[in-house]
């Protein structure tokens, strides 16, 4: 009896411990998680700065000294490059370990290992588009180059030195919530991170949507709505800049023959955000108050916490570079040194094409290619799933690239065509990291052009300024030499007719140095005028941001860093300027209700700025979206895409009786005034229902848009919501609901550089740190923080708050 009682007591206690130490569904292991000795409580940090300390880590060649300033930015003083990258790895991991690992797991399609089968289809898709394959190709190049080899290996040692110090109680809180442990860092993970960025910036493809549209409305109308040269343009390279090269011969122009597409599936696309773009510009010395050029840059990306960016300064005897890094990659990605400053925005060349593959049989060992059968290469992918058996997936590689979806196969990403092989520039061997590490050390224009010549994908507009007063911009990447419109639609994979064969020589990429207008700029728009000899893509970002930046710069003299800041925060809506008067004039005021008249009145008196306190942007944006729906949905369906804003703007202004305004679903032949009125009334109705009758607080643009910066794993409570801010899509201040300026910087080179920067987050990735989101509020107000740029330790005793001394163990 006693024995039984004892066994029961043991069992009960054992079960209890087991239950409290195990994760059930989304509930973390309660005992482990709530223990103040070990659980989430341990991640709470005190306000203020930790005490300075000295510590020993393995692998260092000499001593390294790190100062942290009042923004918790590390200034790493090392005696050699190896040690600088090693300590960069250590410090970055100290602040961002979970994020670094999670992002690379996401890139590699390994999220199911952490969260279980709910991420299975996501993971499978990442394998199918060859993310790890791409990273392996990159790693090979990284290892061939002594600079990037040393950097990634030292960085990995640093991260691993930090991981080795951790006990489970020290793990970042996300590991505790999801109940797993960090694994060792490797150079492959740095490569995966860069491919994660490449996918975000160059993975989007409209080829499937465009092919559906072509089938629905025919070639002529497709060309009318989706022209290969925009109708409103202010290109990156100013018109009239003469070519400084002899163009190579163009490929023969063949008529577009899209591949048969019997299996095009109807569904809403989900892929990288179309507004993944950015602004950068440099105003020349003659227009600046500092006597030197001033560079500004703000990359627009999804806004998350922990932030994508991490500020750092790296100082060695032959380098002193400062700016933002990507947690997971050594060096500085965007920034400046004593001589030069650089910044990037995304180019949108067509570097993702799809080729229809005709397999010989169901084994998919061979496919038709150039009058014969070509063998496939199969790559086995094992997707490990937490709490379940692993799934083995075989990815088929062709001469073009991987077949992402087999015919009839449902995919995670519905803009992906079925039965097509993907040709993506990011699969090619390249070493983009070498570009950044070279820029970190570059001293002049020649070294800058040398550095960027290694950059293949994702193509970037590299803006440049130096303290010899040069300004420049290269629209740089590796571009296939294509016939016009090659790859606008899905392509045929049974021939090599449309295969990528030759590339535009890098030196012939669009570029401009010291233009007579006294400034360079880019905002992802169409890069060149019609005189540039090569085809890059049929569509780039619409004209508004680029044109507005150029208007502001052209009107600017004696510019200061603060004038650059004011452009970054420019909320003026060029789109509204172009079309709002026309639209308003189309409305027959007599047919409006009392509420509609009131809204009409408010919109008419709007100053055209998307400021957070305005009501106009709320009404105009809703109206614009509904106007697009009413114009295009009946013609193009809701499984494709709409034409660029320029197309509708031109129609509104020039062809109010265009057939596109006719709603094919009604008997009546509608013209612009009909659908303008209808969409305006629908807007009033929607907004009134959602925000109430009285046009007041809730109608303010800042409240309506309600920007949020969410946690990377969408953990509730760990993000910031309801951020009152202006801007929007097509606005220079491109701040949307979940997306916008992920980093804003203004750099003024000179005898010593002065620089400012801010990002919506904080240096620490720990939600329990006061430095987790401390920059969000000043960022949302459009402020910048001065970046501390030091020469030697102890330069700035006022801003330096704490330090760490590293020596080898």
């Amino acid at each position, binding site marked *: 009896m006693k024995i039984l009682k004892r066994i029961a007591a043991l069992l009960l206690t054992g079960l*209890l411990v087991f239950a409290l130490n195990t994760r059930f569904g989304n509930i973390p292991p309660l005992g482990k998680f709530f223990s103040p000795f070990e659980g989430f409580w341990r991640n709470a940090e005190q306000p203020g700065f930790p005490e300075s300390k000295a510590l020993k880590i393995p692998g260092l060649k000499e001593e390294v000294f790190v100062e942290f300033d009042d923004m918790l930015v590390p200034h790493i003083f090392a005696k050699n490059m190896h040690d600088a990258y090693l300590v960069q790895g250590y410090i970055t991991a100290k602040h961002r370990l979970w994020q670094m690992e999670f992002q690379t797991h996401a890139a590699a399609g390994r999220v199911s290992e952490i969260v279980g089968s709910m991420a299975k289809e996501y993971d499978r898709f990442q394998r199918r588009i060859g993310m790890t394959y791409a990273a392996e190709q990159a790693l090979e190049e990284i290892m061939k180059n002594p600079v990037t080899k040393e950097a990634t290996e030292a960085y990995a040692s640093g991260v691993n030195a930090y991981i080795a110090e951790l006990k489970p109680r020290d793990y970042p809180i996300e590991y505790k919530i999801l109940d797993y442990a960090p694994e060792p860092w490797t150079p492959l993970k740095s490569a995966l991170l860069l491919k994660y960025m490449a996918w975000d910036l160059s993975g989007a493809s409209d080829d499937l949507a465009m092919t559906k549209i072509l089938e629905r409305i025919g070639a002529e109308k497709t060309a009318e709505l989706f022209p290969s040269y925009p109708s409103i343009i202010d290109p990156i390279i100013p018109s009239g800049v003469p070519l400084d090269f002899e163009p190579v011969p163009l490929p023969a122009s063949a008529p577009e023959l899209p591949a048969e597409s019997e299996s095009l599936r109807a569904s809403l696309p989900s892929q990288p955000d179309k507004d993944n773009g950015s602004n950068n510009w440099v105003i020349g010395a003659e227009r600046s108050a500092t006597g030197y050029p001033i560079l500004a840059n703000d990359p627009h990306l999804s806004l998350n916490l922990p932030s994508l960016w991490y500020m750092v300064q790296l100082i060695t005897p032959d380098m002193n570079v400062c700016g933002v890094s990507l947690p997971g990659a050594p060096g500085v990605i965007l920034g400046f040194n004593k001589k030069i400053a650089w910044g990037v925005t995304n180019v949108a060349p067509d570097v993702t094409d799809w080729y229809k593959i005709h397999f010989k049989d169901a084994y998919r060992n061979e496919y038709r290619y150039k009058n014969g059968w070509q063998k496939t290469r199969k790559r086995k992918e094992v997707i490990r799933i937490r709490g379940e058996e692993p799934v083995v997936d075989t990815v088929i590689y062709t001469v073009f690239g991987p077949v992402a979806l087999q015919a009839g196969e449902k995919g995670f990403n519905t803009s992906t065509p079925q039965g097509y092989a993907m040709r993506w520039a990011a699969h090619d061997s390249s070493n983009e990291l070498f570009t950044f590490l070279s820029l970190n050390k570059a001293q002049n224009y020649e070294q800058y052009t040398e550095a960027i010549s290694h950059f293949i994908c994702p193509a970037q507009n590299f803006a440049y300024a130096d303290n010899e007063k040069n300004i420049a911009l290269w629209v740089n990447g590796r571009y296939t030499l294509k016939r016009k419109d090659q790859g606008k639609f899905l392509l045929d994979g049974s021939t090599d007719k449309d295969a990528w064969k030759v590339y535009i020589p890098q030196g012939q990429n669009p570029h401009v140095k010291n233009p007579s207008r006294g400034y360079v700029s880019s905002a992802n728009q169409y890069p060149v005028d019609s005189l540039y000899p090569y085809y890059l893509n049929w569509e780039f970002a619409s004209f508004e941001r680029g044109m507005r930046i150029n208007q502001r710069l052209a009107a600017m003299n004696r510019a200061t860093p603060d004038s650059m800041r004011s452009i970054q925060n420019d909320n003026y809506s060029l789109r509204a300027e172009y079309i709002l008067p026309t639209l308003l004039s189309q409305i027959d005021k007599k047919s409006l209700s009392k509420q509609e008249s009131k809204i009409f009145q408010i919109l008419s008196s709007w100053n055209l700025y998307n400021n957070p306190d305005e009501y106009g942007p709320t009404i105009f944006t809703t109206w614009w979206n509904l106007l697009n729906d009413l114009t295009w949905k009946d013609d193009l369906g809701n499984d494709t895409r709409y034409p660029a804003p320029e197309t509708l703007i031109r129609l509104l202004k020039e062809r109010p009786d265009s057939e596109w305004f006719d709603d094919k679903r009604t008997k009546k032949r509608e013209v612009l005034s009909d659908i303008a009125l209808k969409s305006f009334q629908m807007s009033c109705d929607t907004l009134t229902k959602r925000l109430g009758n009285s046009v007041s607080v809730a109608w303010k643009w800042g409240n309506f848009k309600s920007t949020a910066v969410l946690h990377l794993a969408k953990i*509730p*409570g760990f993000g910031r919501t309801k951020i009152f801010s202006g801007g929007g899509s097509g606005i220079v201040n491109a701040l949307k609901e979940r997306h916008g300026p992920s980093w804003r910087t203004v750099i003024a080179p000179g005898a010593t550089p002065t620089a400012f920067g801010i990002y919506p987050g904080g240096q620490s990735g720990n939600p*329990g740190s006061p430095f987790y989101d401390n920059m969000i509020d000043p960022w949302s107000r459009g402020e910048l923080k001065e970046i501390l740029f030091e020469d030697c330790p102890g330069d700035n005793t006022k801003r330096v708050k704490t330090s760490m001394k590293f020596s080898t163990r």
Partner: protein
Amino acid sequence: MILFILILLATAIAQVFLPWWSIVPVSFVCALFFARSGKQSFLAGFFAVGISWFVYSFFIHWKTEGLLTQKVSEMMSLPSLWILFVLTSLIGGIAGGTSAWAGYIFKPKKRNLQRSPYF
């Protein structure tokens, strides 16, 4: 009372070096020697660990100005962040109490440890 103080101190020291579940063997062993009844041992374990978890977590909350406490209580959609302290104390308490009770169950019957010189 001796059992309560003993479990409080011994588990606190153990948890500094060992995983959280070290409270289980530690409370068990303490009860093995110092338990008087099932109820007494459970309550001693429950309050010893529950109070130490409450005090320590509250200390952290106070020292860090509740920055993380607020976020975690939002994550769990708790109506008030005080529920976090209740949960913390309860979870620690139940683990400590159950293991102390189990220790009592295993206690040899014959010897009367109430007269232990340590009492």
